[in-house]
């Protein structure tokens, strides 16, 4: 067991854990933020995606001990930047979720995509998002929502 400091959604959490524990379980079960989901435990589905210093990571594959107190973790509960709000609004506009279980991970990945590539082509979206499984099959709506968010982010920032 080790004392680890985590900065999650701009709040510092001091937790006592096995440093080998995946970040996913530290976030869900120790810190108590349940919006990040467990899907496969092998980095194959993307449901557990969070951002580490703005980069999307699979929290089920990241030992909590590998993260330093200075690194900033953002989970779906902390998605509050202008871009993230635009993305969530686009998700509602296109009525994307069905069961909704994968959508925290989809939104965290989509945020990272639009940060690195503000005007993605359809192929860019497919390439970037194909690591995130949606068993309900909401893919075409995710694609449309990302395109809408990209448009809204650029037009609104210009005005």
């Amino acid at each position: 067991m080790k004392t680890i400091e985590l900065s999650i959604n701009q709040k510092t959490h001091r937790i006592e854990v096995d440093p080998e524990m995946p970040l996913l379980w530290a976030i869900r079960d120790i810190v108590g933020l349940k919006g990040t989901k467990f899907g496969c435990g092998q980095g194959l589905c993307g449901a557990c995606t969070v951002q580490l210093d703005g980069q999307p990571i699979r929290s089920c594959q990241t030992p909590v001990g590998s993260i330093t107190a200075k690194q900033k973790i953002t989970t779906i509960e902390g998605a509050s930047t202008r871009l993230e709000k635009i993305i969530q609004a686009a998700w509602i506009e296109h009525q994307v979720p069905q069961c909704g279980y994968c959508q925290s991970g989809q939104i965290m990945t989509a945020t990272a995509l639009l940060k690195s590539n503000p005007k993605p082509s359809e192929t860019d979206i497919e390439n970037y998002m194909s690591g995130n499984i949606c068993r309900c099959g909401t893919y075409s709506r995710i694609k449309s929502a990302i395109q809408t968010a990209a448009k809204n982010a650029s037009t609104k920032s210009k005005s």
Partner: protein
Amino acid sequence: MSLESRRSFIKKAGATGLTFWLGLSYVKGNNAAISTGAKSLTPFIKIDATGITIFNPNPEMGQGSYQAVASMIAEELEVSLAQIKIKNTGGEKEFGAGQWAGGSSTVREGYLTYRKIGAAAKEMLIKAASQKWGVSPESCTANEGKVLHASTNRSLSYEDLAEAASLLEVPKEPKLKDPKDFKMLGKSVNRPDIPLKVTGQAEFGIDADVPGMVYSSVERCPVIGGTLKSFDSTAAMKVPGVLKVVSAERWIGKYNSTGVAVIATTYWAAVQGRKALKIDWDTKGFETFNSTDYEAKLRLLSNEEGLIDKQKGSVDLPADQVVESFYETPMVAHSPLEPMNCTVHVKGKKIEIWTSTQVPVSVTGPGLMGDLPSLMGINPADITLHAGFIGGGFGRRLYFDYIVEAINVAKQMDKPVKVVWSREDTTKQGPFRPMTFSKMKGGLSAENALVSFQHKVISPGFMDSAMPNWDKTKVDSMMTEGISSQEYVFPNMKNTFVLADYHVPMAAWRSVTSSTLAFAHECFIDELAHKAKKDPLDFRIGLQPANSDTLRVLKKLREITNWDKPLPAGKARGMAQWDFFAGLSAQAVEVSLTKNGAVSVDKVFVVIDLGTVLNPDNVKAQVEGAVIMALGAATQPGITLKNGIVEQANFDTSPVTRMNQAPEVIVAIITEGAKIKGVGEPGLPPFAPALGNAIFALTKKRLRKMPFEIEFV
């Protein structure tokens, strides 16, 4: 509680015994206020100082019942969705036998019942207001949660009227609105669960957070059909955080099997402890079982006569041309993205459960999918169920094996225990959609008219899996689903069923056996059409009686696909239809060949026949999802066993469709029909045969085995 009696009437709807109590609580001979503080016009509508709550008894698993039920009630009650809170029920007695989700049944079975619940409450609220004002109920109207008396410009909120209304008689046949006056039904209204799902606030079963909770991971016998002989927990108990190691029995249908549960302070510790277990399994001879052998057995069984599902005329008359084919499909896993899980707190006799389930009613008492309390010897009154949003059901969560197992774990712990299955557990332990093999035979006259049709299903049985004493001389009609009820008119027909013994637990998978039988049936119709030198759509239309629902759907498909206009070179299309208990859909799939010879699924056209539509955009979403799920089942590996063990484990070996594989889906909704049909499942069965038929049109290669042995992009 000063409730002394309860006046209610029971409305039965549908063949499955869906029952709703449309009643109210009141104090007989005592007009004093009801002491609960919440006024219940019916259990489904609660009005108190904080506002109006509508209860949803059909668990939300993505299909949209959370909105559908609320909007059917709210439409008639005259409140907007923004004015209400929606709560999922947890199998409480007062919400009746309809507390489950499956069979695409929420709207097709509940459409009138839910509307009546809202309409009755509205009539009571209007009557209460009219009595207060001393005016006639007819001179009052209801709108946006208020009763209005226009001529005197008076209004009262539902909150203010609830108490008086709750003392009135419940109208038995309340007047329903004319659909032309609907404010939300029939319109693409935003789903109220979606804002919760884009912000991480929606609580799924796995998100249960119970004070003092510990975690468990269970090692189950890797050989399906095996069970625990003995275990050594010495090493597991040394893993930091591990509290206890216990054995726990899981029951599913006629099967039971004991596994070893490691209970620990964290899930991670439980998983580490599980790895350190030493277990001796009793594999009961199933360790030599191989799917390939079983498939050979199914092929051999196809020579049996079989039990008659339906017979018409005689198929023994000689035909000028005979076509024979054999179709095969695999077992598949449901793979909901939320792994199986259940949290249980056993306090003496009391059992509190937090989970995702499609059958709350069966978890707290007798219901469609069984009776957990009686199975486990628990008094139903001692069970409290908190049913969360479901992170994917697809039929898997119609079975409560994981709840039984979690109760058996938690009984041995003085704290609440959350049992979480890994993805590998969720894939490997079943239950699975059964494979079906189909022997097809058709006869054509010299003039290419279809004279006879035969479909023999060879498969394990749902009923044989569910019941220890299933009478094997009877047709398991779930295994012949749809093959004898298509609207085609065959002059002579014989459909039969051969049951194959099996030891693997079986489960309904979205669209049940139609998900495999439609493939054989509709590809074979295509083979007959080609043999008869007819266009596949014309051939099907020619087999329809006048004014059939299927005919309407086929004509619509012709229209939206521009069927009679040839596609550009290098492209081809195929089509199929399917009519079964959940509903009716026809589809056309457009495919093309890429330079390296792989098939690209370009476009899917879907016609769905509904009778009435609640939320067109949600119907579209359901159909899009059904097509994506069907594409995965048709083209990705299924579930196979080797040496008794499921060979697939996670999304690498048991893949599902990903974004880059998803085709464009175009949906047309038909509402002219008289019968209300389902939404969640009908989009699935026609896809695989339409794709197979399209690939035949493109390559002249007839695919008779799923998953298709062809390369896709």
